[in-house]
Structures are given as C-alpha cells and as structure tokens.
C-alpha cells in the first residue's frame, strides 16, 4: 500500500547547519498495516511523514501509494490518498468555519469543488451520524465555530475529518502529545476505533512507548534518520516498555563508545 524506497533527505546540505534527517530509508506497509513509530527528538519521524504526504520532497528515493508513484507530487496533490492529523490541535481544522463546514471541506477530499451548496440536508444528517461516533455531543453543535471547541474536541474532529473519507494512508504525527492525559486517552481510543472501522493503513508517530506497543501491528524505532528496529506481530506483542528502553540505551551506549573511540 505504501512503499518507500531509498529515501534520503538532508536539510541545508553543504552548510554548517547541515542536518541529515533521513538516510536511505526503505519501508513497506501492507494494506491495513498499522505501524507505530518511535524515536528520540530529531530522529526524522516528522520528516518521514512529511515526505509521504508530499509536504517535503525527498533528495533521493521514491514514494508509491497503492502502486502509484507519488514521489513528485506536492501535498495537495497527494491529499486524495492521504489523511493527516497534526500535533497542534489548531492545525487540522479551520477555526472561523463551523463544524459542518469543516466536515464539508473534508468530505470533498481530492474531489472537484464546484458551485454546489456545501452543506445540504442530507450531508447534515450524515455529519450528525459521524459526529455521534465521537461521543462528545458534537452532533448537536453542527453550527458552532470550530474555534470555540477545546483542544481535545478539535483533535477528535480533525481525526474524524482525516478518516471518514477512507484515505488510502492515514498519517498521525504525535497527535495526542498536546492534550492532557485524559483527552489524550480519549483521542487514542478514537484513533483505534476509526482505523478499525475504515480499514485504514496507518503510520502513527508517538512519543508514548506504551501507546506504541499497545496500538497497531508493527513498530519501528528511528534514530538519526535510520530505522533501527522493526518488529511486528507476535514479536511486537511480546515486547514491553523496558525492552524499548533497553533498545534506546543500547543505541546511546553505542554512540558513546563511538565517541570515545574517536576521542
């Protein structure tokens, strides 16, 4: 479903600020794979998602979605295949538009936008049903401005908007990180439900190792632009947080000894 081949990305190449964000990444997601991604700050997780979504162009390598080469497409051209939720709850919705208008915008994902009234009676009903699944009473607030919603509500709405049109890939970048623990748990639960209901192929970055282990069927760990661990199925199911921590320690240890060697 998603095929990354030989992806490399360096920011500010050839300057003192040079940053090798991704180094020769190969990653293949099968249909309905749900992959969680962990890694230290600056490991390249967001860059990886931005390259999949077309927000950033890779220096090398190719991206294919559902067999289609999308390497050269920009973000809005990829959007018909990809649903996205960002870390910042304000990022995924338009604050000065109503809930129903935001949903109408989302429903036209990748379709032609013409001169038909966006919110029809039929759509209202459909939006109500979709919102009801969020269990936050938003189905009674169709006409409210999204800017009035709390961060948790906005993030739930973003999640709904990203998923209900069945994109081929769902990209989540620490989408619960800005929420308090209770709301984060709610959005996490909704994520699992929506991915399940819409049979989505998902790539989810998280800083929460517990979450990375309990969700999805596969886990990758990134470090310095490389995938340094890739576990799936029973192997993943058997893993515990201490195992991940140990893996982290391992890399850091290796790094330290590298440095001592160099010194």
């Amino acid at each position, binding site marked *: 479903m998603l095929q990354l081949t030989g992806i490399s990305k360096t920011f500010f190449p050839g300057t003192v600020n040079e940053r090798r964000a991704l180094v020769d990444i190969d990653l293949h997601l099968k249909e309905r794979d749900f992959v969680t991604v962990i890694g230290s700050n600056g490991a390249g997780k967001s860059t990886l998602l931005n390259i999949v979504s077309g927000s950033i162009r890779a220096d090398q390598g190719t991206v294919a979605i559902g067999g289609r080469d999308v390497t050269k497409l920009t973000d809005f051209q990829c959007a018909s295949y990809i649903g996205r939720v960002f870390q910042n709850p304000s990022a995924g919705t*338009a604050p000065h538009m109503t809930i129903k208008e935001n949903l109408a915008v989302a429903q036209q994902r990748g379709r032609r936008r013409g001169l038909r009234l966006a919110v029809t009676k039929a759509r209202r009903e459909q939006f109500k049903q979709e919102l009801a699944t969020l269990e936050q009473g938003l189905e009674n607030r169709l006409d409210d401005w999204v800017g009035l919603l709390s961060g948790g509500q906005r993030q739930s709405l973003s999640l709904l908007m990203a998923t209900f049109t069945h994109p081929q890939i769902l990209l989540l970048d620490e989408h619960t990180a800005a929420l308090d623990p209770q709301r984060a748990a709610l959005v996490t639960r909704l994520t699992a439900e929506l991915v399940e209901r819409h049979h989505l192929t998902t790539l989810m970055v998280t800083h929460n190792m517990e979450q990375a282990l309990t969700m999805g069927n596969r886990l990758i760990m990134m470090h310095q632009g490389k995938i340094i661990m890739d576990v799936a199925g029973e192997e993943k199911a058997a893993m515990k947080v201490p195992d991940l921590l140990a893996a982290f320690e391992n890399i850091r240890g290796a790094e330290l000894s590298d440095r001592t060697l160099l010194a």
Partner: protein
Amino acid sequence: MITAVELGLLYALMALGVYLTFRILEFADLTVDGGFTTGAAVAGVSIVNGVDPLVASGAAFVAGLGAGTITGLLHTKANIDGLLAGILTQIALYSINLRIMGKPNISLLREDTLFSGLRASGHLGGSSYVGIGILSLVALAFLALIIWFLHTDLGLAMRATGDNSEMIRSFGVSTDAQKILGLALSNGLVALSGSLVAQYQGFADSTMGIGMIVAGLASVIIGQAIFGRLTVFRAAFAVVVGSVLYRVVIFLALKAGLNPNDTKIISAVLVVLALVLPQMGFFKRIPARFRPRNGAQTAATGGTVDDPVAPSESDAEPAAAPKEQ
C-alpha cells in the same frame, strides 16, 4: 445626500471585492486602485464606441478578472510579497488604463449608459428615491451572489485558504489556485464597480481609482465594526452598509466645509480610527466579535516542525472566541 447613498451602493461592489481579499483571503490587495480605473476605462471606451452599456460593464468585469489574476500569479508563482505584487499591478495598470482611454478623461454625458434612462426621468441623484431603490436591488443581488458563493464547496475552500492554509492543502486544495481565483473575482467586482461609477457620474478619469483601496477597507472595517462579522451573511451585509455609510460620512464632511481634496485624509483617518479604537482598553469589554481579529489562532504550522507552543487543552476554557469572518 441621495447622491451619496446611490454612490455608496455602486461602490459597494468594490467594497465586496475588498472583503473577499482582505477578510476571506487575509490579503491586502493594492491592485484595487488600478483595477477600479481599468473598469471605468474599458466601459468608457466601449460605450463611446457604441457598445451596449451592459456588454461594456461585462467587459469591465472581465478586465478586472485579468488584473486580479496577474496579481495572483505574481504573488503565488513568482513568490512576490502580496503587498508588492498588488502595487506592481496597480502601477502597470496606470499606464495600461491611459492606453485604453487614449487620453486622461472620457466623457460619457452624451452616451447611452446603464443609467441614462433613470437620469433622464429624474430618478437619479435628485429628490426621488427610485434610484436608491433600484441600486439597492443591484447591490443586494451581488451581495446574495457573494454569500451564496462563500457557502458552496468552492467558496468553503476559499474561506479555508484564508483561515488555515495548511489544513485545506491537506484536503487536496491548491491554495495558490484559490488565491488567484479570489483575487480575480475581487478585482472583477472592483472593475465592475468602476464601470458603474463612471457611467453614473458621466465620465471616466485616469485618476479616479486613487485611494480606492482605502475607501474599500474603510467600508469593510466601518461596516463590520458596527454590524459585526459573526457569519459570512452578516459580514458581507455589513460591507454593503459600510460602503453607503462611508459615502455619507464623506458627504457630510464636505458639507461641513471640508475641501474635496481632503477626502483622502478623511478616509485614512477613518480607517485608522476603526482599526485603533477597538484595541484600546475601554473597548476590550465589547464582545469579541466587534473587535478586529487578533490573530485568534495561528493555526497553520502544524506538523511540519514540532510546535513548541501547541495550546494546552482544557474543556472549561474554549481555545479562543474567534467568531468572525
């Protein structure tokens, strides 16, 4: 006074154009000063050459579409700052307008215009309210069109482009295309307004667009300061009323003894007042929707880089109260 109201209704189309760019796309578009004259010039020359005035006005609209498209292309494809892109088109249009007209001034007094019938029967600018009635219907028709457009799928995409461009791109909309379209439509309205004003006053003049953007902003800001901009409906309606109010204020100022050359500074002061007053402490107690948008939420950056200032969340306290259009 009646003349002021009638002019206000004609300028309302220009103000609606400014609303599209300034409020919907959050783009201060200085093309307006040039495009307004372009509309007057195109219609004027066409009418003098025997073109039907309705067709001539349509041609003015199309010319405005072109002007706006050029600013849009300069901004989105050539990556020129929005203000500068508008200024460049505006200055270029000044030369083009003189080319179109062939001379600085075209008289339409003896020509058949959209308004000659009304004028001849004494229904315009005089003591009759028929002119106001008819022009109100015209302004309301365009108001209805704009409001309808902003509620279509396309219109929603345009509003989202101004509200959260990152978000609307993630749903497959080219924000560049939306900006170009918005600028084109806006300047189409501006040029149409210019053509109507020229026909109303009986001449087209190469300088008649100077300061027009400030008049447009004044209409938008004054109208919305009074009527609010809670919904698209209210916001756009406020613009039309603001345009009439603005012309009436100017009319009263002149009547009070100010020189016609002073109208530009009156406009500038009005806009400054309308922008500054709401920021003062006293006005802060006024409901938020009457205040200018305070960059309510800088939503756009999102996932590209980790956002260190992601708002913390709380159900008791809504993120903000940004209820304006």
